[in-house]
């Protein structure tokens, strides 16, 4: 019996529409996983195991105990170490498939950095948890003609669709009426079942593997929408909107929005404070100073400081997340008082 040269991928190479040629294309492919939560962690795992050659994983958060119910890439040790999700994902994936180059980036994706994150990338897998971030990425993907696999989930429901600029509709063709900021339920407010997140991610990666290994894309987006609790599936063919401001008019509203300094992280009793001028904080000096005032945990990527009624996490890109308040003014004041920024 002839053994295939690379046993690792033998089972998916046997799948004829992919085959050895498709596998070689996957190896040459470069994918951005934008957000590494319920969707992104599962997508990253499936993409790495499938042998996609390069993954850039971007996420702004650290691994928390409430993630482990659905995010199979992480474990209790990551929570104890206070690891950023992007770093924990890269560590785990290095053990899963050492053929794959993983670049972890701990950052909040915004208008300032999104183009740089897309640099050299063939496709983006959506792992976001807000409409704002998705519309921003949609603008950037249409501008740079980068295919985007839209995915989202909430409660027991998930959806996915491949959006290829110039071929299929974009996200704004699908959702011409923009959601009001903060109006949509999130996994932190409405909950999420692991299978719903995994199903959405699996459908996303299914689209990604097909597109990357064959280059094929249908002219209409096929949105798949599923409920794992009711065991119901439906699909919807979406045509391009000839009047779409984004992909027809090439008007990129979300790329030009100035990111507000603070953002309430809905359902998490937290506020994120962005620095006015991004700079890398000096964790060692800060840790030394703060140790006399409260409990400090510091590693290469973040510094966490606990007081009686709040927990402040400062990241290496200068962002801070204040847990224990939903008041932006109080969060800004705590950050200024504690970190002096």
């Amino acid at each position, binding site marked *: 019996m002839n053994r295939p040269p690379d046993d690792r991928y033998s089972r998916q190479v046997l799948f004829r529409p992919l085959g050895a040629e498709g596998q070689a294309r996957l190896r040459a492919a470069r994918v951005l996983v934008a*957000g590494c*939560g*319920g*969707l*992104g962690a599962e997508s990253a795992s499936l993409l790495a195991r499938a042998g996609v050659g390069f993954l850039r994983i971007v996420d702004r958060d650290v691994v928390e105990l409430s993630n482990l119910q659905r995010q199979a890439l992480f474990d209790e040790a990551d929570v104890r170490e206070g690891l950023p999700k992007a770093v924990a994902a890269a560590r785990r994936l290095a053990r899963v498939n050492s053929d794959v180059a993983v670049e972890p980036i701990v950052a909040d994706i915004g208008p300032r950095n999104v183009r740089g994150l897309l640099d050299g990338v063939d496709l983006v897998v*959506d*792992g*976001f*948890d*807000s*409409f704002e971030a*998705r519309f921003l990425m949609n603008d950037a993907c249409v501008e740079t003609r980068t295919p985007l696999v839209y*995915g*989202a*989930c*909430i*409660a027991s*429901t*998930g*959806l996915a669709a491949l959006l290829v600029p110039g071929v299929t509709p974009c996200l704004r063709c*699908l*959702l011409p*009426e*923009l*959601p009001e900021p903060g*109006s*949509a*339920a*999130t*996994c932190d407010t*409405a909950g*999420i079942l692991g299978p719903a*997140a995994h199903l959405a991610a699996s459908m996303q990666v299914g689209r990604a593997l097909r597109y990357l290994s064959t280059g094929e894309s249908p002219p209409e987006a096929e*949105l798949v*929408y599923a*409920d794992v609790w*009711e065991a*119901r599936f*439906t*699909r*919807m*063919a*979406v*045509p391009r909107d000839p009047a779409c401001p984004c992909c027809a008019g090439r008007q990129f509203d979300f790329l030009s929005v100035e990111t507000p300094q603070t953002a309430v992280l809905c359902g998490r009793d937290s506020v994120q404070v962005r620095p006015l001028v991004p700079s890398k904080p000096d964790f060692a000096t800060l840790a030394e100073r703060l140790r006399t005032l409260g409990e400090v945990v510091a590693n290469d990527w973040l510094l966490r400081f606990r007081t009686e009624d709040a927990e402040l996490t400062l990241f290496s890109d200068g962002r801070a997340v204040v847990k224990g308040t939903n008041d932006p003014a109080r969060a800004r004041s705590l950050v200024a008082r504690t970190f002096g920024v």
Partner: protein
Amino acid sequence: MKVRILFFASLRDELGDSRSVEAVEALPGETTVAALREAVAALSPAAARLGRRLLVAVNERYATDGDPVRPGDSVAFLPPLAGG
């Protein structure tokens, strides 16, 4: 008229399937996506909140307010999802 209605996510939580079918049967003959959307919004606060942001598929195709809905059609109401 009779159409097959599918509700997903927050609408399914509020409506299940039975009440919606009765509401749709009360509509005369052929109708439009807009009229159906309005009928559903009267029953479901989630649909009312979403307004035109609620995605509607008629026979598994994206539909806008002016599109017709005929007896026997399958109509799915799909709230846009934000989580991840």
